[in-house]
């Protein structure tokens, strides 16, 4: 069979096989909302940059003014040795973060509605700096009644986290509260590892039975799921995949197992500080 005939037969077969593959009917809206978020971030970046530039110009002007006014260079901040009051140190967050307290039944608590941030230590990644601590932060946003999450990497040199790239920021996502299930996906990339890695955090209610993942482990066998070491089922799920579908199984009020599927579209991109996809969309 010639190449052309093979190609035609191939196309005919693939048309039949792919006939059922249909895009999300809301795809255009998803892309537009992503685009809007990207524009807002871009504009916010310009605003921040402008403010920093103005602050820099003001500081430089004051410096030059003080230097030229007195004929000698004056430090804008008095030195401690000259008897100036010692600045009050700001309280640094504990490092490593404290182990979160479990409920008696072995489950980790969900964030309270006060906005308090719960911090959960995560397992380090292969490329993390020695002595670093990866932390997942989860909180409740009372304004939107969403659960939000973000990640950070703390090191002895940078105990407040951050330290470049997406470590401090990652990207936050929200979840949709449910009577029995709090599900959601957050995509974030660790700053110190491969920028293409994506973490997906699923925040589950206490009736969760198990968690599975779809769309991973197939044609790319190295893209697989895993659980955090030593963590009880049904608290958080961390995946290294770009756009997996996560399936939560949980018990309804009658004790029946219910399957709930949620998908994170749009992997973290670039240096990981972008999370463009509609997060936690359910279907």
């Amino acid at each position: 069979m010639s190449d052309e005939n093979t190609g035609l037969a191939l196309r005919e077969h693939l048309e039949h096989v792919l006939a059922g593959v249909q895009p999300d009917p809301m795809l255009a809206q998803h892309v537009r909302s992503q685009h809007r978020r990207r524009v807002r971030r871009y504009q916010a970046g310009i605003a921040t940059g402008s403010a920093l530039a103005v602050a820099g110009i003001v500081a430089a002007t004051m410096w030059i003014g003080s230097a030229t006014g007195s004929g000698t260079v004056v430090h804008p901040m008095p030195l401690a040795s000259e008897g100036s009051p010692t600045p009050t140190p700001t309280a640094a967050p504990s490092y490593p973060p404290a182990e979160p307290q479990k409920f008696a039944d072995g489950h980790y608590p969900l964030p309270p509605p006060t906005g308090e941030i719960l911090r959960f230590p995560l397992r380090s990644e292969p490329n993390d700096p020695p002595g670093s601590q990866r932390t997942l932060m989860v909180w409740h946003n009372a304004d939107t009644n969403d659960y939000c999450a973000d990640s950070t990497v703390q090191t002895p040199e940078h105990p407040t986290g951050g330290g470049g790239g997406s470590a401090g920021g990652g990207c936050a996502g929200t979840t949709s509260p449910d009577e029995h299930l709090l599900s959601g996906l957050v995509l974030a990339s660790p700053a110190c590892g491969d920028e293409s890695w994506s973490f997906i955090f699923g925040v589950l209610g206490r009736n969760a039975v198990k968690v599975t993942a779809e769309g991973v482990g197939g044609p790319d066998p190295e893209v697989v799921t895993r659980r955090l070491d030593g963590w009880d089922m049904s608290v958080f799920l961390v995946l290294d995949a770009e756009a997996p579908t996560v399936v939560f199984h949980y018990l309804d009020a009658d004790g029946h197992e219910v399957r709930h599927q949620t998908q994170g579209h749009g992997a973290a991109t670039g240096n990981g500080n972008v999370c463009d996809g509609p997060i936690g969309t359910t279907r």
Partner: protein
Amino acid sequence: MTAPGQDFDDFVVGRSPMLLRTAVLLCGGDVHAGEDLLQQALLKVAGRWRAASENPTAYTRAALVNLARDRRRRLSRRPAEASWIAASEADLVADQASTIGDDVVVVALRELPSRQRTAVVLRFWEDLSVDETAQLMGCSTGTVKSNTSRGLDRLRLLLAGSER
């Protein structure tokens, strides 16, 4: 950056089924990866809609090819890990996630080296000419021809093996 308008929506609604299938094939039959790839490509198109609106299909197709190449590079750098899902459960999940992944032709297509797969998909699925394919892949027409020919030879071999 200007916001894309109704014409962008019309384009997505009209063309995304075909583009999604191309994306799925470029991802070796992974529907979820294909969906993700298409969304990323459309986001790029939305960001440059003023320029892309002249020929948005070609623009999106080029973005798909580039993003698929980037994806393969990223995946090749990712260290292997073991799954915590039991094998039988993972199989069940995979079955639910995608039915096209079991098709012998899709499996054979997935086995092709990436450039051969891209060439075959663009030439015979997208029905592009050798010149257009070469432009998209950023290579010479001779390279497209050799990749296409080798890809088809390999496909025949793989499919003959699967029939036995």
